């Protein structure tokens, strides 16, 4: 679900990089956020709510609201709307509060 043609903007996508989402290998682009890369792959659920275990996705997309917390490379509570994608990144759906090791 990417935009390829735009009347005003030019999306220069540079280096393609690979990352894993719940063990699945996906592709994204350098310079984009984890949330953007997941959306481009059609994935909109980021975590499960703490008490009612309801699916939660992106809401504010600018690092304000904590709706999009995921486990990134083992670290919980990462706001994936402002976290840049890196080669080989391991992204997982967060369930509950997340455990700090």
């Amino acid at each position, binding site marked *: 679900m990417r935009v390829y*043609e735009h*009347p*005003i903007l030019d999306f220069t996508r540079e280096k393609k990089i690979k990352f894993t989402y719940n063990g699945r290998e996906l592709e994204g682009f350098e310079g984009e956020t984890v949330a953007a890369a997941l959306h481009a792959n059609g994935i909109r659920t980021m975590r499960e709510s703490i008490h009612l275990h309801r699916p939660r996705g992106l809401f504010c997309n600018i690092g304000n609201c904590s709706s999009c917390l995921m486990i990134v490379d083992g670290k919980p509570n990462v706001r994936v709307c402002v976290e840049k994608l890196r080669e080989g990144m391991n992204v997982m759906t967060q369930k509950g509060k997340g455990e700090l090791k």
Partner: protein
Amino acid sequence: MLAENGVPTIEDLAQVLPAPERLARGPVAIAECFQEIPCDPCYHSCLRRAIAPFADINERPRIDHEKCNGCGLCVNRCPGLAIFVVDQTYSDSEALVKLPYEFLPLPKPGDIVSAINRSGAAVGEARVVKVQSGKQMDGTNIVWLAVPQDLSMEVRHFKMEEVR
């Protein structure tokens, strides 16, 4: 009504349309700008000074249709995409409507497109006569549509999907 559904009424339009005699003499700009908002680029865009100076930046544009020659510079500069040029002298059966267009793909001259009115409804067909695009337009292209004479005050947009 504009404030309720975004569509100007006949009474709104009556305030901004040029006189029939002026329309009969060739291309002229029509500013369909019905609200006092802080905005004045149209005034600065007009080389002929056909748009009256703004005493206050919130004033609505007042076009002197006698001074206006329908060049279309203001069509490109209006941030609200609210200015159109109409030329009723294009041919006996057709009028020309020049409108701002910020979508892709752009049509090509000769294309037949669906002519759309201010409510977003298809009202007939239009033929693309010219497309002013390129870097200097900064994304706000101007498309020239030939439409039936009786639709020159109706057609303000077009859709490509309808191309036959």
